C-alpha cells in the first residue's frame, strides 16, 4: 500500500515566481491537508480539501491556493513567491472512520526561494 507521495522533492524558485506542488493521498483516503514547516519549527496548517472543496483554511494569505481532483490528489499553488516562503511543504491525507481522524504525512517538498 503506497503511502502519501509528493512531487517534486526539491524546488528552487526566484522571488515573484509561482510554484505548484503536488500530492497523491494514501490509498482510500479522501481528505488532503497542506502544511508549511519552516526550519526548526512545527508544521503550520495551510488548508484542507475534501470533496474537491476547501473545507478549512489556516492563517495564510490568498497567495496560497489549492485544488483537489476527483481522484483525491491535490495541488498547492503559491503565487508571488517571497523569501519567507522557503520551507518544507507537507501534504497529509486522512479518512474519517468511526470518529477517528488520523493524518498521514508525505515526505514533503523542500521549496527554496532565492
Amino acid at each position, binding site marked *: 500500500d503506497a503511502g502519501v507521495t509528493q512531487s517534486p522533492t526539491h524546488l528552487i524558485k526566484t522571488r515573484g515566481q509561482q510554484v505548484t506542488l503536488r500530492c497523491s493521498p494514501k490509498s482510500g483516503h479522501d481528505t488532503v491537508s497542506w*502544511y508549511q514547516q519552516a526550519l526548526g519549527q*512545527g508544521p503550520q496548517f495551510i488548508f484542507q480539501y475534501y470533496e474537491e472543496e476547501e473545507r478549512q483554511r489556516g492563517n495564510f494569505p490568498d497567495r496560497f491556493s489549492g485544488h483537489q481532483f476527483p481522484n483525491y490528489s491535490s495541488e498547492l499553488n503559491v503565487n508571488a513567491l517571497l523569501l519567507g516562503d522557503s520551507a518544507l511543504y507537507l501534504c497529509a491525507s486522512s479518512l474519517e472512520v468511526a470518529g477517528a481522524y*488520523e493524518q498521514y504525512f508525505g515526505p*514533503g517538498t523542500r521549496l527554496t526561494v532565492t
Partner: protein
Amino acid sequence: QQQVKQSPQSLIVQKGGIPIINCAYENTAFDYFPWYQQFPGKGPALLIAIRPDVSEKKEGRFTISFNKSAKQFSLHIMDSQPGDSATYFCAASYMSGTYKYIFGTGTRLKVLA
C-alpha cells in the same frame, strides 16, 4: 488558546534511558492528541495518539500519559535506542468541526550509544 507548548527543545539520553517530552494546551475543546516522529529530510510519521477519556496509552516502547485537569500530556520512550534519535512533535486537534492539527515546536532527541 490555539497554541500547544512543547518542552524541552532538545534532549540527550543514554541508550536504555527513558526520555520524556511534555506538551501543554489551553483549549479544552481539543479532543485528539497525536505524537509524530520526524527524521531529517522526511515527513512526520504518526507514532501514537490519545483521546482525553483515557489517562495512558502504550504502543510498543512508546507511552502517552494524559492529565486532563492539568491540560498536559507527555510522551515516554522506554528503553530508548540510537535509532530513536529524531525530532518529536506533539499536536492537538478536534475530532469533529475543525480538522487542522496544531503542532508543538518540536523536541530534538539524541540517544547516545
